[in-house]
């Protein structure tokens, strides 16, 4: 049972973490280059 | 009839400009010298004109062919002496040339002929690694003319050729179109009709032999 929890916790951490990080990165780069 | 037409040749290394929109037209049989300080972009320009490197942008036409797409066909008619001799030290001078004869698709007898043309006949069997810097340069020049190219691109060949270097170059350059990069203004003046001066990757002027920009 514990492995189930760890497994999904890890998945949420990695996938969620990466998604948040790339969105922040996007916001950062978009603000530096507002042209469009 | 122009043998080479280049427009807007630009080249970037990373985010640094090595060459900035150079325009150039060379007629058949013409000898052009390329002068400029180190880092002015001479080597980059010559590597592009010899089809050894691709520019980041710009157009280049050699002998009527698009140099970016027809590189292998053009290499049958282009001879290139780069900075480094690019020889196999363990192989003898003759073996080096015979090997490149096969790659060039020319008869192996050309090896002995060109060795004679550059005055290396006596050291034909000596390993290239044991030749002096000047002799290695001559061997590189010999290799560049194995296939009797119409266009010869020479990147500072005089660097270690010694006293009779100018005569050797004159002989090799006869009846060919040549692009010669050098620091030696006198040599450029003697061997070439036209000079292109580069500074920081930009073309600062094309002068005919009469008034060379110092």
């Amino acid at each position: 049972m514990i492995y189930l929890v760890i497994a999904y916790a890890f998945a949420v951490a990695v996938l969620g973490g990466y998604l948040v990080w790339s969105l922040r990165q996007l916001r950062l780069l978009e603000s530096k280059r507002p042209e469009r | 009839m122009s043998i080479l037409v280049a427009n807007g040749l630009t080249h970037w290394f990373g985010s640094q400009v090595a060459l900035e929109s150079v325009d150039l037209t060379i007629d058949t049989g013409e000898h052009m010298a390329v002068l400029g300080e180190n880092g002015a972009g001479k080597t980059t320009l010559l590597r592009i004109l010899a089809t050894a490197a691709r520019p980041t942008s710009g157009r280049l036409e050699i002998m009527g062919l698009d140099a970016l797409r027809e590189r292998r066909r053009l290499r049958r008619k282009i001879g290139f002496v780069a900075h480094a001799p690019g020889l196999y030290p363990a192989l003898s001078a003759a073996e080096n040339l015979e090997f490149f004869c096969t790659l060039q698709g020319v008869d192996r007898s050309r090896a002995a002929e060109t060795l004679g043309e550059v005055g290396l006949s006596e050291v034909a069997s000596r390993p290239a690694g044991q030749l002096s810097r000047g002799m290695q340069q001559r061997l590189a020049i010999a290799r560049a003319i194995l296939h009797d190219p119409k266009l010869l691109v020479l990147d500072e060949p005089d660097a270690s050729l010694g006293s009779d270097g100018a005569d050797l170059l004159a002989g090799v350059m006869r009846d060919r179109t040549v692009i010669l990069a050098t620091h030696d203004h006198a040599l450029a003046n003697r061997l070439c009709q036209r000079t292109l001066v580069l500074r920081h990757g930009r073309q600062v002027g094309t002068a005919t032999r009469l008034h060379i920009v110092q």
Partner: protein
Amino acid sequence: MSSTIAIALAVARKDLRAEWRTRELVPALAQFVVLALVIANFGFQIDARNAPTIAPGVLWMALVFAGLVAFGRTFAAEREQSSLEAMLMTPASPVAIFAGKALGATLLLVGCEAVLLPALTLFFGTPLSFPIIATVLLATIGMAALGCLFAAMVARVRARELLLPLLTLPLWIPFIVAGGQAVQVAMGASGTYDQALALLIDFDILFVVLTSLAARFVLDE
């Protein structure tokens, strides 16, 4: 077509002649593999019973690292002398040059295997038979094609010693799995030798074709 073969043979002959003259690579590889066997001998406490199962693993391990050194070396030399560019500046097709380099490297590795296999038999007491030699030679072909392609790629990149194993080993796994199995069976273990050999041949064909197609992109300017 014929000029491609002529060029490939000329490139291979050039490499082998240079190696024969300098005699740096093969002796170094031979010494390396023998040392690997000695270390393995102490590491695994070999005895008559477990030799047939351990020897194949040691053989492939020694071969893999010798291969990495051999392929890395042949292209490193070309880069240092900047002779690779001189070759590419000729109308010779990159595939022919690549085939020549791969053929040369293969023969160098076979030279090293000529020391490795007898040494294995001597140290481990395992048999040395034609099936074993055939397996090793077959695997060497496919591994050389891949090894040379990525050695050519990393030769012009920084941190090439790190990159070559990282890119090459995953692609060598199928050869090690099939080759390892074939050698184990040839040394007496139960299992199918023919199937393993057939697999090796399939992998050889697949990767020789793929590397030939990829050569012109890797050996480009």
